[in-house]
């Protein structure tokens, strides 16, 4: 039965109270409360890493919270797995679908169920599933095989799986991230008809426009905490939401010398590229970075920032436009060519790209230096020199490890990042491309990374700094570009940048009105 905390209004489908979820080194959810009413679409808004998905994974039984309690339809629950959650009428559609490509829609819906025990009479189930889909406004052919379906249709199969299992609460984790605009419209119509039929929906997103369109209420999270709980979306402007989401905190002041830009080092012109999903990820990006300048790129993850770094360093082909480094055309040249031109790269994926986990620290430190003397002597590698080189870097960058023969995978996140920075800085960079350089690091390591990046600026290298941490970008950069859906939608001198406006641009709002923080701006969708 609802307790006295229940606010007046429709009954609650879900009530989460004081949820705390810790991961090693991270407090992902810090005493979070969350309410979902019956028959509403409730948006959960926040930047990447704000703790939205974690909170919903707790609700779905994937994670067990360190503390806190959960009530579903008035009953205290403690889920040990998503199977328990679905039994209580609660299901989640993740960003990565769990479908068997070679099987039909019907087979995928029935997978894991006790009935039918043998594959008999699937046709009868086809009809049953087609009927269920129709009732919820989902257009689907139950006999189609998954690989024949578009991403939007596959998402419908995931929703259908949950509905077939009797879900009355649907959790959708960034459902529009994989959808084309028309598909998103169709999804919104489906969700609307489902809540009209009495279902309840949690809609995780970081796009303000769609949140305003689809959600009845919004809960905003930032750094593991709720900054706005269940405010009605009708009475809230996107500018207010943007500020709640991005926030503004007093930074530890970072000492920066005056901005003395030199000649242009990196020049990117109208660059276009295709992302991993086969969709355009960069749609005509142009920018210049000068020697002694840090250009920060802000944006919500997945708007083309990673692809920009990959195209500049030669790891991803571009489909249009050009890139020059110190005047040399390096468009679509292999990584070797950019390395030779002293382009250093601190990649986003430290363990998968930035290091070889099962090789030694020494082997990892020479990744950019092994071709040239003094490490290389013609065909051979001078192992004595490798040892001295690695020991030198380990000492000056304070990489905490028993020896340079230790495997890189044994390093902590901060030490691994020190290793990567040591290696990249040792390559005497003219251009430094740093992607999420402090993600997941502790305060001390973050300070080290910031200090090293600023020292590079001082030394006259150009820096492309890509980070989802807006405070970091603002603190380090001279100029700041905002990326949204593969384009640069705003370029500012950091001194004149306005957080509310940047937040709005990051989330697809327009910056036509140069609004003061807090003053409502009309939504442009």
């Amino acid at each position, binding site marked *: 039965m609802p307790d006295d905390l229940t606010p007046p209004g429709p009954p609650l489908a879900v009530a989460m109270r004081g949820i705390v979820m810790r991961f090693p080194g991270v407090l992902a959810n810090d005493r979070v409360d969350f309410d979902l009413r019956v028959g509403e679409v409730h948006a959960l808004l926040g930047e990447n890493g704000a703790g939205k998905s974690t909170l919903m994974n707790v609700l779905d039984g994937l994670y067990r919270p360190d503390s806190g309690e959960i009530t579903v339809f008035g009953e205290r629950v403690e889920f040990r797995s998503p199977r328990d959650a679905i039994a209580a009428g609660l299901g989640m559609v993740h960003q990565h679908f769990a479908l068997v490509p070679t099987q039909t829609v019907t087979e995928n819906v029935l997978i894991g169920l006790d009935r039918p025990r043998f594959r008999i009479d699937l046709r009868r189930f086809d009809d049953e599933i087609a009927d269920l889909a129709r009732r919820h406004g989902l257009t689907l052919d139950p006999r189609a095989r998954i690989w024949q379906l578009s991403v939007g249709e596959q998402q419908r199969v995931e929703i259908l799986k949950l509905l077939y299992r009797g879900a009355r609460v649907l959790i959708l984790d960034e459902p529009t991230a994989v959808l084309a605009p028309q598909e998103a419209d169709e999804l919104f119509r489906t969700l609307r008809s489902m809540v009209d039929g009495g279902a309840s929906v949690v809609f995780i997103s970081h796009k303000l426009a769609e949140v305003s369109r689809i959600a009845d209420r919004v809960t905003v999270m930032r750094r593991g905490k709720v900054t706005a709980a269940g405010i009605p979306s009708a009475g809230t402007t996107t500018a207010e939401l943007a500020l709640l989401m991005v926030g503004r905190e007093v930074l530890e002041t970072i000492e920066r010398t005056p901005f003395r830009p030199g000649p242009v080092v990196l020049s990117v012109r109208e660059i276009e590229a295709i992302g991993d999903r086969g969709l355009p990820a960069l749609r005509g990006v142009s920018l210049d970075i000068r020697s002694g300048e840090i250009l920060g790129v802000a944006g919500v993850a997945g708007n083309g920032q990673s692809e920009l770094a990959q195209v500049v360093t030669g790891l991803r082909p571009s489909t249009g436009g050009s890139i020059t480094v110190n005047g040399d055309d390096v468009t679509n040249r*292999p*990584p*070797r060519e950019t390395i030779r031109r002293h382009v250093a790269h601190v990649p986003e994926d430290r363990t998968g790209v930035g290091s070889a986990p*099962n*090789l030694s620290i020494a082997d990892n430190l020479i990744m950019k230096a092994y071709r040239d003397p003094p490490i290389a002597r013609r065909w051979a590698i001078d*192992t004595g020199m490798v040892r001295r080189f690695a020991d030198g870097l380990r000492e000056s960058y304070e990489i905490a490890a028993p020896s340079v023969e230790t495997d890189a995978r044994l390093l902590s996140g901060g030490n691994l990042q020190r290793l990567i920075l040591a290696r990249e800085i040792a390559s005497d960079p003219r251009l430094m491309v740093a992607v999420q350089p402090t993600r997941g690091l502790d305060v001390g390591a973050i300070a080290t990374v910031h200090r090293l990046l600023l020292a590079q600026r001082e030394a006259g290298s150009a820096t492309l700094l890509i980070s989802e941490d807006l405070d970091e970008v603002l603190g380090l950069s001279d100029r700041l570009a905002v990326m949204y859906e593969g384009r640069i939608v705003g370029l500012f001198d950091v001194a004149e940048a306005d957080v509310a406006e940047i937040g709005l641009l990051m989330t697809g709002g327009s910056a036509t009105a140069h609004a003061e923080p807090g003053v409502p701006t009309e939504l442009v969708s």
Partner: protein
Amino acid sequence: MTAGVPARHPGRARVALPWTVRLERRLEVPRWLPAATTAGAVVVALVVSGVVLAIAGGDPIAAFVHMLRASFGSPGVISDTLVKATPLILTGLACAVAFRMRLWNIGAEGQFLMGAWGASAVVLIPIVPAGTPAIITIPLMMAAGMLVGGAYGAIPGILKAFRGVNEIIVTLMLNYVAALWVAYWVFGPWSEGGFQLTPQFPKEAWLPRLSDLAASIPTFSGLTIHFGLVIALVAAVLVRFLLVRSRRGYEIRLIGDSPRAARYAGVNVARNIVIVFALSGALAGLAGMTEVTGVVHRLQQAISPGYGFTAIIVAYIAKLNPYGVVVAAIAFGAIILAGREIQPSGIPAMIQGIVLFSLIASEVVLRYRIRVERRAA
């Protein structure tokens, strides 16, 4: 509520045992452990084999002693063991080089046959006129064996590097192609009087044997060890240098651990795949060359008792270490030789199989610490 206290929960009841086995991932592997587990695994394998022998009605101790004597008991049999080990060292190196980069070359057998064919072609086509001195013929045959084996190895390399074709399937299938290719030549163009073998090579195409020196040193009389062993040992040293000390070796290690990191470091991954496959094929081809020039002195159909396949086990047991390959190859040469002495002849194959199984199983000990815990009541 406090953390971790299970509340009312609709889960299924589990059957409770009084203890549980837990595997904990090892963070650091002590230096001595890999060698110790390998030795332990071999001991376990021998014990298991002994049990099987005993069940079959044999005396395991006597059988093992007999096997040892048959392979290491006298200079003569030691020499025979080393002759068997020679092609295993080279094919084992071929597999080790490829496996280091996580290229699963299952085609050393086919590359071995193609190398044997290429070497034979030098004297059978013939490429060199009859009576060409050995000092020219032998190096030419080595080059031909490596070239044909290497080219044959490059096929799966090119397919994988540029078309993403699975190398396991391709190398496996190419083994059959190579066997049929050799069969065609020994049955057809090179057949001697319609038999499925070629004429004997001229003496200039024979690798020198220790017994050749018997005239001056009588002890060497009857010893079959041939110059191929020297070639194999030199190859082991060179491969070790390549893997440990060279730039190419560094790239191979890097790609083997993380192709994405290698690309990030500016390594041309596709090119390395082709190069390493060609090198692997060349080593296997060289093995084929030493076998036709050092042992049988002609090309024939049944030239390999599966050296290319045993090589996979040899490389694996050696943990892809070139010097380890030499040791493992000698051990397997001994098992092959002892197989002739033991009835039924399936026993050595069984021992090989059990050794491989227990080695694979021993990996668990390397990666995990095994804990047995009493379950709290």
